[in-house]
């Protein structure tokens, strides 16, 4: 049998004999089970609520009596972001984004009702999810299981014995990695199966293949993530003079890479690409909308004051259309600039994924789970398209039926058939293929991180040798 396999088998037996595996593995499995149960319950409840609310809202829209279309546009409609099936595993940015958008006349709105606003300050410690457990505690389990993998052999002199049998250091390294990987696989595979079953049970029939593909991507992502940490642990264990030093250094690395670096990078990216505060954004948008509307109004009616006495009520519907269309490009520009600043901040942080695999896997995990900002942006854009569709249909109807009434413009009441001309809002998240295509930089970074640590582990082991 290959020497690496023999070493892996021996290490597995030793790990199975020790208490660390059962304690750490037990805690990890318990947390994973609890997080999946919480995720499944939350997912099912949110999905039911949002589906029902979406249906009720559109039914309410259709049931409107005869009324002035612009009043209907002012009341508008709500749209609800569908809960992604893989949010069971990784709720991602969900707690900080919210899921409800109010579509109404004149202005694009931000998503309201962030769940984190309905929670105490403790929510900032994190929320229990399988992704949180794997990203934060997964590496810690690898450290606890593997910190002494090579250092203790050196301390006890067994490394010298092993090498005297013609086994190479490279084989020792891969054997150790295989043992740690197998141990983690044995721990995590049952949890993965449970998570997969929960996700597939929750996903609608037509979306199961998509969910399965995303699950597969998640499995690969977390395997790469933990593999990077396995080789990091082995590199440090090979370098350290004692197991104690190895443990202390690895814990220091874990703290730096998992806890400290992401926060420092968030600060750095905020300083590098500043994003607007709510007030700055609203002030800039308001001023730009005002300017654009005045220009368009002047062009259409020869006067600069929107909805002033210069334009008669017989042109009110036309004025609404001019007003709204003047705003579309401004809204696009400002929202795009805001979202682009977020995307750039995240991209800057993502490049540190080579150093901190936690950052890379976090982006990848929420991307594959459909709970990242790209997905939110796509939903917001789809909702805005629906708002404009609604607004355009209603303004066209005003031009057609109310403007002809002259000064009695507001006496017009549209028949309920008009409401049905606004189609129900339907949002289809990006398919798994597109998401995987988008995720390749993060996959690449995780692979690069893994390769970096494999190379380092090999180099360190070769340099330190038996000494």
């Amino acid at each position, binding site marked *: 049998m290959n020497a690496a396999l023999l070493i892996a088998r021996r290490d597995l037996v030793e790990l199975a004999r020790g208490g660390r595996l059962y*304690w750490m593995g037990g805690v990890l499995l318990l947390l994973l089970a609890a997080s999946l149960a919480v995720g499944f319950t939350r997912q099912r409840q949110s999905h039911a609520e949002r589906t029902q609310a979406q249906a009720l809202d559109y039914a309410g829209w259709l049931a409107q009596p005869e009324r002035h279309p612009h009043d209907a546009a002012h009341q508008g409609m709500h749209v609800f972001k569908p809960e992604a099936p893989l949010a069971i595993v990784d709720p991602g940015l969900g707690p900080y984004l919210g899921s409800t958008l109010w579509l109404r006349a004149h202005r694009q709105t931000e998503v309201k009702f962030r769940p984190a606003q309905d929670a105490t300050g403790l929510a900032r410690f994190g929320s229990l999810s399988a992704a949180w457990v794997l990203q934060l505690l997964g590496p810690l389990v690898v450290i606890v299981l593997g910190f002494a993998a090579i250092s203790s052999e050196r301390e006890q002199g067994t490394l010298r014995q092993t090498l005297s049998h013609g086994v190479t250091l490279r084989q020792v390294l891969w054997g150790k990695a295989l043992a740690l990987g197998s141990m983690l696989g044995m721990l995590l595979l049952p949890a993965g199966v449970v998570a997969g079953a929960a996700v597939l049970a929750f996903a609608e029939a037509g979306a199961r293949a998509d969910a399965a593909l995303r699950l597969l991507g998640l499995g690969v992502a977390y395997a790469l993530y933990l593999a990077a940490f396995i080789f990091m642990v082995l590199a440090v264990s090979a370098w350290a003079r004692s197991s104690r030093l190895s443990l202390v250094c690895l814990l220091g690395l874990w703290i730096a890479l998992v806890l400290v670096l992401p926060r420092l990078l968030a600060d750095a990216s905020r300083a590098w690409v500043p994003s607007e505060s709510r007030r700055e954004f609203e002030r800039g948008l308001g001023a730009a909308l005002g300017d654009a509307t005045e220009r368009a109004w002047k062009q259409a009616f020869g006067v600069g004051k929107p909805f002033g006495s210069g334009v008669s009520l017989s042109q009110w519907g036309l004025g609404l259309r001019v007003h709204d269309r003047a705003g579309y490009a401004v809204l696009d520009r400002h929202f795009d600039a805001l979202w682009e600043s977020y995307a750039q901040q995240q991209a800057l942080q993502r490049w540190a994924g080579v150093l901190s695999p936690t950052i890379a896997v976090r982006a990848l995990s929420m991307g594959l789970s459909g709970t990242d900002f790209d997905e939110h942006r796509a939903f917001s854009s789809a909702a805005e398209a629906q708002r404009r569709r609604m607004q355009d249909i209603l303004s066209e109807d005003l031009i057609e039926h109310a403007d002809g009434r002259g000064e009695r413009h507001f006496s017009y009441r549209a028949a309920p058939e008009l409401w049905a001309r606004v189609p129900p809002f339907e949002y289809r998240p990006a398919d798994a293929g597109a998401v995987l295509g988008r995720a390749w930089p993060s996959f690449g970074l995780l692979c690069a991180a893994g390769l970096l640590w494999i190379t380092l582990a090999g180099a360190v082991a070769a340099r330190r040798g038996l000494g």
Partner: protein
Amino acid sequence: MRGQMRTISVELRRIMRHELALLHADKSLWVVSALLALLSVYAVGTGLEHVRSRDLERAEALAEQAAAGAALATRLGRVMARQEPPDPWANPTDPALVGGGLATRYADLPSAPLALLAIGQSDMLPDLYSVSTESRVETMYDSEIENPWNLLTGRFDLAFVVTYLLPLFILGWSYNLLASERELGTLRLLLSQPVRLGELVLGKVAVRAVVLCVWCVVLPVGLSLVFRPEARGVAGLAALAGWSSLVIAYILFWFALAALVDGVARSGALGALVLIVCWVACVIILPVALSLGASLASPAPSRAELATETRVITAQSLARLADELGRDYRHIQDPEALLPKGGRFEVSERLRAFFLASSELDARIEAKLEAFDGQLLGQQVFVERWGLLSPAVLVHEGMAALAGNGTRRYQRFQARVTAFHAEWRRFFGPRINQGLAIGEADLQALPRFRWVELEPGRVLADALLRLVGILAAAVGAALAARRALRRYPVT
């Protein structure tokens, strides 16, 4: 007895001097000091920059409000003197327009004196609301715009350094207080002197604790006093004293725990492992579990249902007011209708109808909104009760509260904004409904938002309770450590 105490004190001082020399010699004193000083300064800088940008934003908003108010008063004077025709959408005599936005008032939450020490909820919850006659649902559900990725990551403020990193420095510096001496064989030598094991541990801990207090308590307090003049007042100093006590108690807790583990573990590596497990449980897992527990004990009502209900109520109101909404904006085409006559103003039927619809929405949705406030309060009570399980939760919540960025203060702010919104609507309601024109006296008498700070006694009492909780944990760990040290095998 006094002589014995004096002997202990002399021995303790000698151990501390000796330990200090050792820490100096192995350079850990300087490495730890440099790292902690750097972290503290960076974290305080982060907090300071955050507070300054928010203060600046608020100041700009309030200055704009004052300028807009002055411009409105000037325009009112010119319109009344017939020097300027009234703009149908910015008529300063129209109560519906003035209340609905022309005279928008900001309700603002000032930064507390120690705001730089913990960012808490302040990067997510607004400290500035623009209040108008719009419904409460529209007014109160703004949130700060911030990159959600950064919100999820969290801020590198002093609360993070103290809650997460400080214990790690303590554990890294004291996981092998005795184990290393025993492994090196110097413990027997030390104990051959007139020194007891407890004194030896106490001396080692005391030196380290003093060093950590210098960088994590004295330095931030000094920086706060220098860069935050508000912290020099009585309230600021009291809060600083509370903050320092909490952090010192937290430091003592982790040292006591380290001493306990040191007394029990038979090797340095095992001790380190046990301590890191304790840290993960206390700082990582328990807060998340408590947060989950709070959301299960006091679950948030459905926001989706709130949106649906809002829509249903609004639809019903607008259907009832269909006749008023069907009236034309006659005044737009009739400049005379835009001017008050004998103190009365013909408010557009449509604008009045919208005001009535929002009043009805507020009245009917109030219970639902109260349920949200109630559930958040329930969660906070849960956290305050069960937070005793984790000193990390106690210190984190305590620091956020003393910095004025805790949940309770934001709850108070939102309650005050709600009351101010109601007052604003009460002011404009009769004027809109009865068609009373806005005059100069009305602009002078516009309601103003007044922030009433949480009672300092209450904040300090809460801090004291948390302090007692952390100290109880520290004393418990210290007593257990003392017992373990009595049985400690020297060889």
